C-alpha cells in the first residue's frame, strides 16, 4: 500500500524534477528517479535483448524460468559534483554488481547466484563518493537471476544523500520493521491457538494456529537474507507453507461456522492432504503449470469457504460469524486488488501484496472469537453458579423443613413415650396400691391402720413416680438418697435403724428417666419388704464402684439382721414384688442376688457401668 503511495510520490517528484529541468536547466537538490535504462540480457552465454527498457524489470515476467544476467546502464544527472551521491534501490536481485563510471561501487552474491542467494526484497542504499562523480556519470547495474527466485530491478532513486536516505529509511521500515511486527503478532496468536488447542482439545484452534504460524513464516521469509536454506529446497518450503496455510485457515473458518461438511469441506481436506505431494511433484519435475493449477484450486477453495461463510451468516447470524465474515471479506477484497494490480501492470516488481497485511484480520478475528467464547463461558459459568446457589438454597430450605418436621415428630414421639411410661408407672404402682387399699377398705374387718398403711404406700408410690420425672442425670447416689428421703419415715416407724454408706459413684451417662425409675422401684420393693417382713432392727445400704477383670459395675447392697427366708423358695413362691424387681433388673442389664439365712437377708444388685 505504502509502496504504491511512495511510488506515486516518487513519480510526482520525478515529474516535478523533469518539468523544472525543462524550464531551467538548473539542477537542485531533489532526488531523481531513474526509470529508463539500456538493458543487455544474457541467457546461457547468449545475448538475447539489447534495448532501452522502462523500469521496474521483473526477470520472471520478462524471461520466464530461465537463468541469466541483465546489465542496465543509466545516465545519472549530477547537479553538484562536489557532493556525494545517494542511491536508493527498493528491490534488486538475485545477485548484483553496481558500477559508477566503470568503478565497482557494490557487489552482492556471486554470478551466477549461489544456492543461498534469495529474491532479495530488501531495499538497498549506497553512497557514491564525490570524487567518483563526473557531470555525465554512468550507473551500471548487473543482476544475475535464477529462474523462479523473483530476480529483477526496481526503479532507482538518486540525489543528495540526506534526501535519498530518508526515502530508503522509510521503505526499510515498511519492508522490514512492519513485517517483523506482523510476524511477532502472528507467532504469538499462533502459539496462543496451540495452547488453546492443547488445553481445550478443540481442533479448530489447531487449524487456526498452524495456519497463522505458517503465514507468519511466509511473512518472515523476506527477513532472511541470504536464505537460511539452499535453493531450491527453500523455495519448496515456502511454497508448501503457502499451500498449507490457506486450506488450514479455510478449515478453521468452516468449523467456526459449524459447516465442516459438504463439498467445500471435502475440497479443503483434499487441499490439505494434497499440499505436500503437490509441492513435491512440482519441485521434482519443475512443473510451473502444476503450481498454477494448485493455486487455482486454492482460489476455488477460498471462494467456496467464503461462500459458505456468507450464506451461513445470512441464515444464522451470530457475532462470531459476523467477525469471521468481516475478516474474510477484507482478505478477499485485498486479494482481488492484488490480482488486479498484477494483471494490469505485468511489469510491477516492487508492489507488496495487500493480502499479506489483510491476513492480520484473521488474527484479530480469532482473538475476538476466543474473547467472545471466554465471555460466553464465564457468563454460562456464573449463570450455572447462580442456579446452583438457588438449588442449594432450595435444598437447604427443604432440609430445614424436613429437620423441623423430624423434630416435631421427635417431640411428639418423645411425649407419647413419656405418656405411655407415666401411664404404666401409675397403673403398676399407684394404681395397684390404690386398688389394694380399696379392697382392704371394703373388707368388713379392715382396720384403720391397715387402710392407712395401704394409702401411705400409695402416696409413697406417687412420690417416687414424681421423683422419677425429675431427671437425676444418671447420678445413682442421689437416686438412692431420694428413695431414703421418701421411705425413711416408714423404716423409722418399723423400728429399723438404717446405716447409710454411699460412695461417690461414676455417673451413668446413658441413663434416662426410665432407668432411674427402674432402680428406684427395685429399691422401693426392697425397702418395703425390709419394713414389712424382715423384722429387722438394723439395716445397711452400701453402694460401691467395683472394677473387676474386664468389667466395671456399681454394687448396691441392702443387708438386714432380720429373720431371713430360704432363698431356694424365692423364685418358686416369689410374689409380685420380687417378680417386678427381677424384671426391672433385666431391663437395667443388672444382676440381683439374694442371700438369706437365719442371720438376716442381703440383696446384692450389680449394675454394669456400660451397656
Amino acid at each position, binding site marked *: 500500500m505504502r509502496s504504491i503511495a511512495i511510488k506515486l510520490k516518487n513519480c510526482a517528484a520525478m515529474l516535478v524534477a523533469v518539468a523544472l529541468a525543462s524550464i531551467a536547466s538548473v539542477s537542485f537538490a531533489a532526488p531523481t528517479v531513474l526509470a529508463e535504462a539500456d538493458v543487455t540480457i544474457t541467457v546461457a552465454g547468449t545475448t538475447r535483448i539489447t534495448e532501452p527498457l522502462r523500469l521496474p524489470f521483473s526477470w520472471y515476467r520478462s524471461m520466464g524460468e530461465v537463468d541469466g544476467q541483465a546489465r542496465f546502464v543509466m545516465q545519472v544527472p549530477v547537479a553538484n559534483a562536489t557532493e556525494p551521491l545517494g542511491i536508493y534501490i527498493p528491490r534488486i536481485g538475485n545477485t548484483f554488481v553496481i558500477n559508477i563510471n566503470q568503478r565497482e561501487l557494490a557487489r552482492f552474491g556471486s554470478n551466477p547466484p549461489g544456492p543461498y542467494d534469495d529474491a532479495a526484497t530488501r531495499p538497498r542504499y549506497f553512497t557514491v563518493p564525490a570524487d567518483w562523480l563526473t557531470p555525465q556519470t554512468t550507473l551500471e547495474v548487473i543482476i544475475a537471476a535464477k529462474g523462479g527466485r523473483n530476480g529483477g530491478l526496481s526503479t532507482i532513486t538518486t540525489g543528495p544523500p540526506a534526501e535519498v536516505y530518508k526515502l530508503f529509511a522509510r521503505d526499510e521500515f515498511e519492508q522490514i520493521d512492519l513485517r517483523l511486527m506482523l510476524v511477532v503478532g502472528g507467532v504469538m496468536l499462533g502459539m496462543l491457538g496451540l495452547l488453546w488447542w492443547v488445553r481445550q482439545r478443540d481442533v479448530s484452534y489447531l487449524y487456526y494456529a498452524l495456519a497463522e504460524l505458517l503465514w507468519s513464516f511466509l511473512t518472515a521469509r523476506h527477513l532472511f537474507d541470504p536464505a537460511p536454506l539452499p535453493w531450491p529446497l527453500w523455495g519448496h518450503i515456502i511454497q508448501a507453507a503457502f499451500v498449507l496455510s490457506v486450506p488450514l485457515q479455510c478449515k478453521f473458518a468452516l468449523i467456526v461456522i459449524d459447516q465442516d461438511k459438504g463439498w467445500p469441506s471435502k475440497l479443503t481436506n483434499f487441499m490439505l492432504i494434497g499440499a505436500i505431494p503437490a509441492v513435491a511433484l512440482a519441485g521434482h519435475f519443475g512443473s510451473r503449470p502444476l503450481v498454477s493449477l494448485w493455486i487455482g484450486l486454492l482460489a476455488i477453495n477460498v471462494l467456496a469457504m467464503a461462500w459458505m461463510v456468507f450464506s451461513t451468516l445470512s441464515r444464522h447470524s451470530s457475532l462470531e460469524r459476523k467477525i469471521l465474515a468481516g475478516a474474510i471479506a477484507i482478505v478477499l477484497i485485498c486479494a482481488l486488488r492484488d490480482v488486479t494490480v498484477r494483471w494490469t501492470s505485468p511489469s510491477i516488481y516492487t508492489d507488496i501484496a495487500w493480502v499479506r497485511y489483510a491476513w492480520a484480520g484473521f488474527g484479530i478475528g480469532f482473538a475476538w472469537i476466543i474473547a467472545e467464547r471466554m465471555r460466553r463461558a464465564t457468563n454460562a459459568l456464573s449463570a450455572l453458579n447462580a442456579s446452583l446457589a438457588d438449588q442449594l438454597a432450595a435444598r437447604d430450605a427443604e432440609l430445614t423443613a424436613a429437620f423441623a418436621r423430624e423434630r416435631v415428630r421427635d417431640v411428639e414421639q418423645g411425649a407419647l413415650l413419656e405418656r405411655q411410661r407415666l401411664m404404666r408407672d401409675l397403673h403398676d404402682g399407684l394404681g395397684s396400691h390404690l386398688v389394694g387399699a380399696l379392697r382392704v377398705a371394703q373388707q368388713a374387718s379392715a382396720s384403720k391402720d391397715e387402710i392407712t398403711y395401704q394409702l401411705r404406700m400409695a*402416696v409413697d408410690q*406417687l*412420690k417416687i413416680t*414424681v*421423683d422419677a*420425672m*425429675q431427671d*437425676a442425670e444418671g*447420678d445413682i*447416689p*442421689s*437416686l*438412692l*438418697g*431420694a*428413695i*431414703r*428421703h421418701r421411705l*425413711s419415715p416408714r423404716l423409722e416407724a418399723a423400728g429399723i435403724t438404717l446405716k*447409710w454408706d*454411699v460412695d*461417690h459413684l461414676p455417673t451413668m451417662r446413658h441413663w434416662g428417666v426410665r432407668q432411674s425409675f427402674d432402680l428406684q422401684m427395685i429399691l422401693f420393693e426392697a425397702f418395703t419388704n425390709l419394713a414389712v417382713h424382715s423384722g429387722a432392727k438394723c439395716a445397711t445400704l452400701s453402694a460401691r464402684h467395683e472394677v473387676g477383670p474386664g468389667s466395671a459395675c456399681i454394687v448396691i447392697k441392702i443387708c438386714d439382721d432380720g429373720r431371713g427366708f430360704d432363698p431356694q423358695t424365692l423364685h418358686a413362691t416369689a410374689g409380685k414384688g420380687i417378680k417386678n424387681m427381677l424384671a426391672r433388673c433385666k431391663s437395667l442389664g443388672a444382676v440381683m442376688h439374694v442371700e438369706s439365712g437365719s442371720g438376716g437377708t442381703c440383696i446384692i444388685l450389680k449394675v454394669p457401668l456400660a451397656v
Partner: protein
Amino acid sequence: MFQYLIAARCKSQATLRATASPSLSMQKTVSVVVVEDDDSTREIICERITEQEGMAVVASFGLVATALEWLQHNQLDILLTDLGLPDGSGIQVIAACTALHPQCDIMVITMFGDEKNVIESIDAGAVGYILKDADYLDVGRFVADLRLGGSPMSSLIARKLLSRVQRAMEPAEVIHAPSAPDGRTLSPREIQALDLMARGYTYSEIAALLGVTVSTVQTHTKRIYIKLSVHNRCEAVFEARKMGILQQE
C-alpha cells in the same frame, strides 16, 4: 414493735385477729403467717403451730392478693405458704416477703417436695419446705426445726444445688467473681455437707462424718439455702418493685 397473737382457730380465709398485747412469756413469741387455700389443711397447720410454745399464728390467708396486702403493713418472723393458690403462685408471696422482710424465714408447703417447685422456692427466698402429707402432729416442732436449720434437703435437690455451686466455681466464673465474700460463695464445709446430702446422708450422719453437732449441720443447711437465694433476693426486690409491692424510695 407490735406482737400479733391469734386465737387457736383461724377459720375464714382472710381472718386477721390482731391483738396488741405484751408477750406473756420471757421468750419472744415467734409470729407465723400461713398461706394455704385448703381450709382443713390450713386449720390443722394453724392449730399445730399454735400448740407449739413460743409460736403464734398472726394471720392466715387463702389468696395471694390478701397475703400481699397484709405483708405490706405488718411484721412477721415465719411465712408458710402453699405454691398453687387460686389467684396466683406462692412464689409471688415468697418474693414479696423476701423483699419486704429480709429477716423472715420462709417455708413452702408442698405436696411432693419435688425439685422444680422447691428450687424455684429457694430461688425466691425460701429456706425450707413442709410436705403436705407430713404428720401434722409434728408440724409445730418441724417449723421450729426449720427456723433453726432449714428443712432436711432431699438428695435430688441437694444434687441440683451442688451442681449449681460447682458451675459457679468453674475457673472462668471465679475470675469474674473471685472468692469475694459476697454472701453467695459456699464455704468448703458447706460444700462437704451439701455433697453428703446429695448422696442421701441425714443430718446426724453428716454431723458424725464431719465431726460436728447436728445443729451445726442445720446451720450449714440454712446458710446454703440463704446463700443460694441471695442473688434471687436482689431479683425479688426488683420484681417486688415492679409489681408495686415494694414502694420505690
